[in-house]
């Protein structure tokens, strides 16, 4: 089963590499949305530092929405998804592989880019570290929960909007604890509690989301 997951990850990374433009769109969207705020709000250091965590996190949520629609759509359209459903291995394992690959091309780059963007908000270096850590724990949660929504809205007309309405509310806990971790650090409280809760969220969604997504895919294909 580990081999199957590795195959899926390798395949999806290869596909993403051959379609680099799609990956870069998500990243540029994130960079631009975050960079617009300092320009719009003005150079008030204190305000910027206060809004930074929220802005970065909301931009990350929106950026993840951009790439989620593509998670299963291409495989659905060209018939690969049928083959995945008929594979003699658990569908949840294939789904997990796809989610991991999705995170590596859409979540991980955001986490890596965030400290650089945080500089525009005058965040102190240590807070940038917390921001990176929070995104590193939080973006996989976005991919995991988002996969459920992507599977449920598969093949529906206007699925993109529906996906946002379905998934964004479910992102709220990740948003609160993710942004909260950085806010806590900025005002001088330990971010440990927030990060632990984010980690718990990751473990819980990591265990549940692949199964639920697999179930949703089977229903979508009937």
């Amino acid at each position, binding site marked *: 089963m580990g081999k*199957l997951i590795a*195959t899926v990850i390798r*395949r999806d990374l*290869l*596909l993403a590499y*051959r*379609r680099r433009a799609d990956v870069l769109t998500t990243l540029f969207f994130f960079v631009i949305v975050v960079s617009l705020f300092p320009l719009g709000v003005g150079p008030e250091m204190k305000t910027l530092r206060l809004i930074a965590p929220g802005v970065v996190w909301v931009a990350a949520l929106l950026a993840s929405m951009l790439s989620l629609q593509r998670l299963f759509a*291409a495989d659905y*359209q*060209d*018939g*690969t998804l*049928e*083959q*995945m*459903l*008929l*594979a*003699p*291995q*658990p569908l949840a394992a*294939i789904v997990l592989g796809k989610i991991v690959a999705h995170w590596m091309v859409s979540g991980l780059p955001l986490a890596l880019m965030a400290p650089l963007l945080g500089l525009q908000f005058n965040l102190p270096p240590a807070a940038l570290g917390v921001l990176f850590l929070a995104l590193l724990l939080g973006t996989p949660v976005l991919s995991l929960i988002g996969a459920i929504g992507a599977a449920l809205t598969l093949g529906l007309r206007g699925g993109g909007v529906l996906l946002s309405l379905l998934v964004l509310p479910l992102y709220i806990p990740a948003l609160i604890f993710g942004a909260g971790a950085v806010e806590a650090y900025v005002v001088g409280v330990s971010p440990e509690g927030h990060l632990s809760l984010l980690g718990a969220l990751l473990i819980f969604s990591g265990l549940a989301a692949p199964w639920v997504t697999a179930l949703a895919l089977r229903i979508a*294909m*009937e």
Partner: protein
Amino acid sequence: MLEAAHLTCQRGERTLFTGLSFTLSAGELLQVAGPNGSGKTSLLKLLCGLSPPLEGTVNWQNAPVRGEDFRRNLLYIGHQNAVKEDLSALENLRIATDFAGEPLSDAQALAALARMGLAGREHLPAKVLSQGQKRRVTLARLLVSRAPLWVLDEPLTALDVRAVELIQLRLAEHLARQGMVVLTTHQPLQVPGVTPRRIELS
């Protein structure tokens, strides 16, 4: 043995077929015929366990067609090619067989593609291949599959005469090894040494 009993299939408000029963034993070929929209693809999906019938049962070796044990015995080729445009023919074939749990080495995959008449095109991205060539990439799986039950949805579309002959020979080989085939096609089928059984949907 594949056993379908009293199958009813409904799509939306329309009932496509009711009370459909048949059994397929080792070495038999079943051709599902009928006009467009008569439920051929829906029937094949029921047989694969991709969708449940409204009524009736489909059994493989006396167990319902659900679960990994059944899927290990199944090769399904849908009317879509399941070929990724951005991957090469070789990558497509190797990934498809990896998913099916019958991984191939590069040499085996190249040999299968060469037999399908794709020699020299193995490393081209599938998007530059013609419709018929893409179909050949998909059908290369027939050359390497060890699954006893093949369910093929319009396998011969877009193929030229020589490729059709090759596939028909391969079907005969498979049936001679006690395999089973269920397929749909609008073309006349001539599998050497085999009289296909027919189901007519209307």
